[in-house]
């Protein structure tokens, strides 16, 4: 695999200029996670209004893959209902684990991570924001 296959321009764009980056002060839910293999951290904040994601932000320290994944994820879930967010989470999981090869329109940007699917150690980086999101959904479901 070449460097450009792994780090497609879309990933690098998001890594350089992550969307929805920073703390969200009036969040209704917040979760913090670490990648135990590298010590990377992510904080994810959601503001839920009328059962929908009104605001979402993340910050922390991460590699290009986890930063890009978090950035794309925030774009994908903004404005979605909690049920829809849950469906996107499931959809992402089946794609990144290789169970599914096709991506719905909402997650089509994640096609850029196709090469990463062959690198189990790096799949963790891409998955970290989504696992953190799953934590939040779990919290809110309680």
């Amino acid at each position, binding site marked *: *695999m*070449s*460097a*450009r296959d*792994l*780090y497609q321009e879309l990933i*690098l764009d998001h890594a*350089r200029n992550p969307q929805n980056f920073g703390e969200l002060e009036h969040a209704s839910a917040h979760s913090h996670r670490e990648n135990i*293999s*590298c*010590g*990377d951290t992510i904080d994810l904040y959601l503001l839920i209004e009328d059962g929908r994601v009104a605001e979402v932000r993340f910050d922390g*320290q*991460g*590699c*290009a*893959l986890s930063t890009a994944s978090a950035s794309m994820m925030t774009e994908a879930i903004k404005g979605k209902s909690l049920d829809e967010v849950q469906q996107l989470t499931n959809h992402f999981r089946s794609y990144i684990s290789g169970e599914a090869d096709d991506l719905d329109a909402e997650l089509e940007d994640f096609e850029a991570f196709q090469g990463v699917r062959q*690198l189990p150690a*790096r799949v963790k*980086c891409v998955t970290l924001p989504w696992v953190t999101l799953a934590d939040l959904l779990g919290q809110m479901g309680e």
Partner: protein
Amino acid sequence: MMRDLREYRRDFPILQVQVNDKPLIYLDNAATSQKPLPVLETLDTYYRTYNANVHRGLHALSEHATSAYEAARRKIAAFINAPKPQEVIFTRNTTESINLVAQAWGRKFLTSDDVVLLTEMEHHSNIVPWQLLSMQIGFQIRYLTVRPDGTLDLSDLDRMLDGVKLLGLTHISNVVGTINPIAQIAAVAHRHGARVLVDGAQATLHIPVDVQALGCDFYAFSGHKTCGPTGIGVLWGKYDILEEMDPFLGGGEMIESVTLEKTTYAAPPNKFEAGTPAIAEAIALGAAIDYLTGIGMARIAEYDELLSSYAVERLGSVPGVRILGTAPQRSSAFAFTVEGIHPHDLSSLLDTHGIAVRAGHHCAQPLGRRLGVPASARASTAFYNVPEEIDALVDALQEVKKVFGYVSP
């Protein structure tokens, strides 16, 4: 150019492997070293011609296996200048060796009033076993701090050693490559009545080790980081200390006599080698040691120093690259960061060039925190690496920076 040891590369079949259609450049030797042909052949010959259990059977194969196994023990004793082969205990790896000291020595001799002194530079394997034991016994754990240059702060050593019953420290840092002045530190520790355990995992591939000159009480190392197979490690300990220790694991081999009520234990080293050991691996570690001593550890150390200086100079000249630790006495592990590029991305990108480095916290999170660098990339060389491979790393780093659009200031 320096006189290198490239003639030995042909003994390592793996160095011919292609990775991502590029020749492998293996710079992850601190994680595990590669294995020369004599080690591979020893494993093969053992299983093909004299596989049998040791110390049990009276038949020819068992006697052959036993004598090869014990010969390996003698080779290891000579390799580290141990006074007696019976002081060499076979374990699985450095981690198990340290756990053996914690369980068989620490559990017996440490009390809640005691102090164990470690350093911030330790690999997790020389921290966690002591934390686990401390939870049971309640002794205090204290740490020698690391200075920004990656050396131990020894300015307050006497006070730090006050009340210390065991000092555990690494010979060579697996992250910043610092070679610690063990002999000097051990002498002070002994004045305070402390036992000294040295983690030699990063030393045995790079420098001559003389446990008597170091003046330590225990020395632990791994076979797989010494050109030997995985699954075999060594704990050396002074005989009188080993004698007064409790056994580690219970089972066959470690007993003198067993009745249903009570067991008396065998003398060291058997007391600590319960169960069938890693026979093939022990014998093959003996072959690795023959191989290394055939080249000469002094010669290896001399070349190591040249290649290290070259690597520091070349890597340090790349804009945006920061090498962690600038100890004057250093070995061949170089942790570094590249401005604006996460170590994981760096490692994946170098991999596309066929270059193997490690990325992450290197199982030394306290050191990373102390240096303010939670994650880094690490290149680590061995005697079979050549200067061109350092050049290739430097070239690849320039490429990587292009991919990331990082423009040097």
